[in-house]
């Protein structure tokens, strides 16, 4: 029996080409564009996002060219609740969320996948750059485009119903193929930034949602260096835009080292204060191996498109403990720690605590 595939079509070149490939692979494909805003014009306009009227039209035209049925699914409420509100709440709690990851976890491979399965589909196909081999998530062939990081939150069950037809192909080839297929989106620019922040001004977006929440900017000794209008405007590792008048004693640049959400205190200090070797993470997902009871050698990626660090990871009750062999810098709570063995995604967790010195016992969240 022909596998029935629901292709999530954002209106971009990747998802359109992925849908076309699924058709060529012999699947019975239906295209669906996810409407993520109740007021589409309020989201990013121009060929940059995934939520505009223009994107819906581009997706529809791509489906026409590919020759598949096309519908728009209204996911605005779920998206607002599970992604937008979560994004705001995470910043309010002093963490740095990744909304794309959350969208994959809660919308594309949860709300959409569940609805698709109930409606008789077997899988959801997207234009993500990642590979699935024997049910295990792998990095994409194109390291520059690899999106396994934002997919590493998916469970085995979710992966078993996911299809990523572009994982083996470099992006440039995908564009060329889209052009050959007559897809008008072949040269549409890649989307960047957060799709639901129309002007790209994350700090302004958060200020509108969270209001002014002034607090102090202090150095590592606790000396007050200045005031800020909202701790949500900062992320660990940030250097620019600190607006601190007092120069550092040693004249070296200062970075955000910590954000304390209750007192709204932002601690800044020299770069070496960012060094982290101990990481704790919650909400573990293990899809590439069994949960390791003992420290297991692996590679750790701590933000999207970030570098990888060698280290060990093990489970301690329901918490993931990670110890890096060499310090990493700018590790923000709220981001995912994704563990790899080469290209294989072993598992992931959400970073809840970091510490610098290996002498700190692994159970203590020094922040």
């Amino acid at each position: 029996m022909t596998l029935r595939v629901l292709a999530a079509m954002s209106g971009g070149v990747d998802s359109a080409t992925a849908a076309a490939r699924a058709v060529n692979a012999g699947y019975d494909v239906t295209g669906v564009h996810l409407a993520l805003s109740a007021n589409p014009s309020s989201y990013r306009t121009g060929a940059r996002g995934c939520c505009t009227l223009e994107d819906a039209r581009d997706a529809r035209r791509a489906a026409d060219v590919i020759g598949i049925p096309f519908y728009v699914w209204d996911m605005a409420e779920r998206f607002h609740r599970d992604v937008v509100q979560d994004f705001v709440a995470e910043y309010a709690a002093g963490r740095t969320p990744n909304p794309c990851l959350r969208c994959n976890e809660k919308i594309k491979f949860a709300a959409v996948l569940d609805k698709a399965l109930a409606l008789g589909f077997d899988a959801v196909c997207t234009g993500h750059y990642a590979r699935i081999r024997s049910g295990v998530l792998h990095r994409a062939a194109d390291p520059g485009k690899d999106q396994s990081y934002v997919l590493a939150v998916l469970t085995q069950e979710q992966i078993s119903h996911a299809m990523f037809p572009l994982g083996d192909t470099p992006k440039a080839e995908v564009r060329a193929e889209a052009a050959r297929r007559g897809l008008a989106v072949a040269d549409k620019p890649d989307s960047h930034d957060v799709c639901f922040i129309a002007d790209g001004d994350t700090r302004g977006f958060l200020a509108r949602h969270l209001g002014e929440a002034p607090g102090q900017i202090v150095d590592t000794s606790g000396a007050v260096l200045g005031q800020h209008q909202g701790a949500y405007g900062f992320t660990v590792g940030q250097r620019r835009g600190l607006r601190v008048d007092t120069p550092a004693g040693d004249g070296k640049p200062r970075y955000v080292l910590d954000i304390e959400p209750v007192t709204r205190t932002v601690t800044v200090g020299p770069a070496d204060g960012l060094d982290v070797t101990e990481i704790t993470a919650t909400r573990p997902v293990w899809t590439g191996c069994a949960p390791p009871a003992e420290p297991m050698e692996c590679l750790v990626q701590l933000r999207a498109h970030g570098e990888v660090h060698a280290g060990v990871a093990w489970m301690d009750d329901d918490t993931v403990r990670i110890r890096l062999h060499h310090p990493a810098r700018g590790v923000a709570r709220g981001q995912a720690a994704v563990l790899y063995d080469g290209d294989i995604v072993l598992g992931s967790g959400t970073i809840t605590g970091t510490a610098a010195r290996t002498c700190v016992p692994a159970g203590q969240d020094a922040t």
Partner: protein
Amino acid sequence: MTPQNTDPVYLDHAATTPMRPEAIAAMAEELGHLGNPSSLHAAGRRARRVVEESREQLAEVFGARPSEIIFTSGGTEADNLAVKGLYWARQDGTRPRGNPHRVLTTSVEHHAILDSVRWLEESQGAEAIWLAVGDDGMVLPGALRAAIAQAPEQVAVVSVMWANNEVGAVQPVGELAAVTHEYGVPFHTDAVQAAAQLPVDFAASGADALTVTGHKLGGPVGVGALILARGAVPVPVLHGGGQERDIRSGTLDTPAIRAFAVAAEACARQRAEEAERLAALRDDMVCQVQAAVPDAVLNGPPPGPDRLPGNAHFSFPGCEGDALLMLLDANGIACSTGSACTAGVAEPSHVLLAMGADDSRARGSLRFSLGYTSTKRDVDALGLVIREVVDRARRAATR
């Protein structure tokens, strides 16, 4: 999800109905002819003759005088011209106590009326009075009278649709027009949905203005008319050559007008038997759907004189309309959620909400509309799959 190996089943005639073969033939023939009906030479005179003969035919069909027919680009333009134009015409400063600024309409109108009235309110100083409807979608003449009687001198225009496009409620237009006239206020009705299935007689209705369109009765898309009684002179929306009595400008589309008239005549010829045939098919459909899905709710008036013969509209508790539509589409069955879409995001139907339905009942609804090509096979095809489709949509919604 694979379409069955049968012809598609089209149950969306209220959206648009197939062009009648005689209308296609008439239009194709006319497309081969040269001539602007406003030109004075022989070619122009030939085109003008076609337009005027068509106008006479349409007047005959709709119980109007030929001079009362103003051709437009369709229902939306005719509705805009009626509501905005008649409102503006009443702002003439001739009344000692000021211009009337109230527009009375119902909360179940088509968006062509709804949004025109809202626009008048937002930008032209009008005050919209929304007449409530009952839970069957019917307007109560008493409610109209009460609304006008509050301050008759302030009412600029009243517009109430003849038959509702979603739930098929047939309004007591004659009665409503009579009430309106008692107070000397012009009355418009959108008869786009009624024209194909009911005897729409302009003169007998007493309306001052009436909207019809070609593609709901087997003519082409892009042509319609506003029928205007003597004395009802809307201020133009479109300015230009003044082709239609200086009320509507734009070169007349001779082939489309010809096909509109041919379709309307064919439609009128068969209307009585068709109405009976469609009502029987519709009753069969309601029966089959409710047998398959016992908790399906038929929205709108009960089948009978208060309901368009070709209309059935159901709420399926626990379902999302978009999932139902998609599953039926995959089975080769075309229907409608009857809701307005922006970027395809389905808004819950304003008609159902106005009838007192809650948000989920409004979202979980489908309109099935029959037309002149509908057969028992179409109805049976729906009856065969609706149970499975509803079960599946229900499972999808509970996740």
